[in-house]
């Protein structure tokens, strides 16, 4: 049985169909979930796609934290459900307190639209499980606020726990320790600035993103156990 993945759509999301298409290419079923819904029943995993949720007002992700779906995602994550935030989705997960750190404006104050080389830095996440450390992937980045920032103590903890899952080979945006993707301590919540869904076909310049999305789907054990039982959320 193939996994069913919820692709969250906020007002201003713009990568939800790309993510759904890439997941379907890998044999999964994708279901768009509107941000006003808090019903994640029947889903094996959730992806927060890129875009500009709520216009990125105040700070990227700051308002998306209050969408009903974000509380449901916090509960889903607390139960161990796989959650992936891509680009703006990563920003939403940090603002929601589901991932450590924050994403600031790029060091050069330019919006970057490029394809960059990233290296898998840890297998301890649903995005990189089974992908050998050191694997190099060509992935597109498209962001203005992709400069990952955290304090020294948090960075030391992330490195020690293997929570830095993806690193830029050549730092494009000033990110602390060239971080392109991080996971939570349990490894079931991951955020990354690069867009694996846009590297899903050789015709698009790279199909390296399928390595990550394939690992993510591999980490989804389709099961009825995640039925949205309320539990502690991580709102700050």
């Amino acid at each position, binding site marked *: 049985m193939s996994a069913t993945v919820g692709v969250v759509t906020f007002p201003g999301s713009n990568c939800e169909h790309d993510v759904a298409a890439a997941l379907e290419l890998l044999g999964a079923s994708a279901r768009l979930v509107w941000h006003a819904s808090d019903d994640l029943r029947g889903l094996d995993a959730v992806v927060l796609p890129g875009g500009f949720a709520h216009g990125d007002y105040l*700070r990227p992700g*700051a308002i998306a934290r209050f969408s009903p779906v974000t509380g449901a995602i916090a509960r889903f994550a607390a139960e161990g459900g796989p959650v992936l935030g891509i680009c703006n989705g990563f920003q939403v997960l*940090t*603002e929601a307190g589901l991932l450590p750190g*924050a994403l*600031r404006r790029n*060091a050069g104050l330019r919006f970057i639209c490029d394809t960059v080389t990233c290296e898998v830095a840890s297998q301890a996440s649903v995005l990189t499980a089974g992908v050998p450390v050191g694997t190099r992937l060509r992935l597109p980045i498209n962001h203005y606020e992709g400069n990952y*920032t955290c*304090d020294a103590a948090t960075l030391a903890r992330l490195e020690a726990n293997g929570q830095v899952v993806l690193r830029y080979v050549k730092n494009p945006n000033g990110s602390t320790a060239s971080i392109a993707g991080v996971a939570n301590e349990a490894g079931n919540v991951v955020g990354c600035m690069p867009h694996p869904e846009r590297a899903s076909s050789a015709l698009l310049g790279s199909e390296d993103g399928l390595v990550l999305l394939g690992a993510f789907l591999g980490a989804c054990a389709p099961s009825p156990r995640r039925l949205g039982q309320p539990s502690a959320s991580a709102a700050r």
Partner: protein
Amino acid sequence: MNFEVAVEVRGLEGIADPEGQTIERALPALGFAGVRNVRVGKLVRFALEASDEEGARREVEEMCARLLANPVIERASITIAPAP
């Protein structure tokens, strides 16, 4: 009581502020040679009804901690004045 509130949000000290650095490099070109430590932030202004100034301040501090600033990268300073 009605209050006028201004919340200034800026990056934590020690975190690079590339916008501030760029402005700092530009000002000497106009002859302003003595400028140092330029920091760029944002200003949020609003009106607030509260029983007294202390209560207003407590409320605004909570707004800052929970929404107006991201404590990982920013800090906020609050100015409160009685509305004229």
